[in-house]
């Protein structure tokens, strides 16, 4: 479906790599929030 060539940027990885980054960041945030909740309760 996607016929366009993604533009290269000197510092941004391709948008496909961002899928993993975004989901990993969410997992890390939930983990940190869990630890925070546990630590302060």
């Amino acid at each position: 479906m996607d016929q366009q060539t993604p533009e290269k940027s000197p510092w941004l990885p391709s948008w496909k790599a961002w899928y993993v980054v975004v989901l990993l960041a969410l997992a890390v945030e939930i983990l940190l929030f869990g630890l925070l909740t546990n630590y302060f309760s």
Partner: protein
Amino acid sequence: MSWIDWIVLIVTLAGIIAWGLHKSRTTKNLDGYFLDNRSMRWWLVLLSIMGTQASAVTFLSAPGQAYADGMRFVQNYFGLPIAMVVLCIAFLPVFHSLKIYTAYEFLEKRFDLKTRTLTSLLFLLQRGVSTGISIYAPAIILSSLLGWNIYLTNIVMGGLLIIYTVSGGAKAVAYTQQLQMVIIFAGMFMAGYMVVHLLPEGIGFADALKTSGKLGKLNVITSGVNEHGFNWNDRYNIWSGIVGGFFLQLSYFGTDQSQVGRYLTAKNLTESRIGLLMNGLVKVPMQFGILLLGVLVFAFYQFKPAPLFFNEVQVKKIEQSAYKDSLHLLQLRYDLVNNERAEAVGEWLADEKAGRSSEASAAKMKLLVKQGDSIRTEFKSLIKTSGVGGDASDTNYIFLRFVINYLPKGLIGLLIAVIFLAAWGSIAAALNSLASCTVVDIHKKFIRKDCTELADYTTSRWYSLAWGVFSIVIAMFATNMGSLIEAVNVLGSLFYGVILGVFLVAFFLRRVQGHAVFVSAVVNELAIILLFWKSDIGFLWLNAIGALGVVLLAAVLQPFMQKKRPFEGTAA
């Protein structure tokens, strides 16, 4: 407000209007007015979608919500990053390849005109009313706290932005949102710094967190499980946040034209994708930060006397009623508890720092907080029983009351400007999207099909103006709605699930055609309204139920419906 605050407020607002007008030059056709000729880079798309989602209510209600209920509201956004990924994979390629103006335009290509028109009308109804609430919500709070006339505040809140929105369309909306977000972040950061700075001597950021945590406000992750099992009526927990939040955000970003219209302005698919994915990265930490501000304000009030009720207008009403003696009694008890609590919190912190056993002092501190809460509940009951009218919840007033009472001159004006700018960002995007749907989905389909580009452009400007006036009229009629951030989310949840269901069928069930999905959408919309009316189910679940209901019923109905030519242009 002091004259310094007035100057800061007026200069900031006038600056935004001037910037919007400066950026108003665009081609005089639909592409230029609604999509800025698809020319924007990802950071503009990012700031635009963030500015559209974060309304004034976000910055007023969220800290108050954290003060009253703790940080668990952040879980509401856990589904957002997942929704961004799904959007980038399934929705964006189709939207970009079809070169559409509105999300609903795609539904005619995939199904038929009636499905497009139904979803567009549901959007216009929901977004039109909620834009009115977006004007009224901050206006009523500012008018109560500062003694401003509510009608005039509504007009300034919803009226001034019309100048640049009508004149510059999507381009002016995006460029003003960019500047607005910078000012908003700067203002909120300064407010956070000031809360910590205003804590008593010897009490730092870590102590404030410790105190709030001990008193149950750092409940970022909650399971929603109680002694009877999973509580489906619990509004914010990790499961409703991930599952319900995912459907809400997928629906909001994938099918709500106020968001679709923002990322369709990107110069290509990649710019759209990076803008949305960056939003997936920054949204949860941003909401965490706003809620943390509320927790810090809570910690601040553990050491300083907190008002019995943060909306003084309601207190004055009771004072002038037959219940004034009850009020004075409650105030006396509350002052006493305030003083004892400040001492108890100090003792607990001293025990903790000295490494002594702090169980006794913690228990005393918790008991006093509970007593204070119970006195506040008594006052809220008094508002209801006295019949003085008005809102018995003061959640939305907590943050701004603190700002007005404790922050220095100049910063008060800046933070009030922040409230206006946050409101303007989301309202401007809403007006632009309401106009684009009315012109593209309704006017050019049913009223005047063949118009010149210039006539389309002029019509679009008139519709932007008309929706602006309509929203202000709704704001004038709006009455008490409890927590306003929830009112907006609840209203969205009544329609979002069904609209999302239609799009999910369009993308993933290729054999299902227009009749089946249309009947399924109508039946499910009625069922969702009935479910909301007759049950206490947490509103986030309505998104999931509505979406899955449309998908399942459409799949079941399809074999019984007349077959049509399958659409060739979609792919998952």
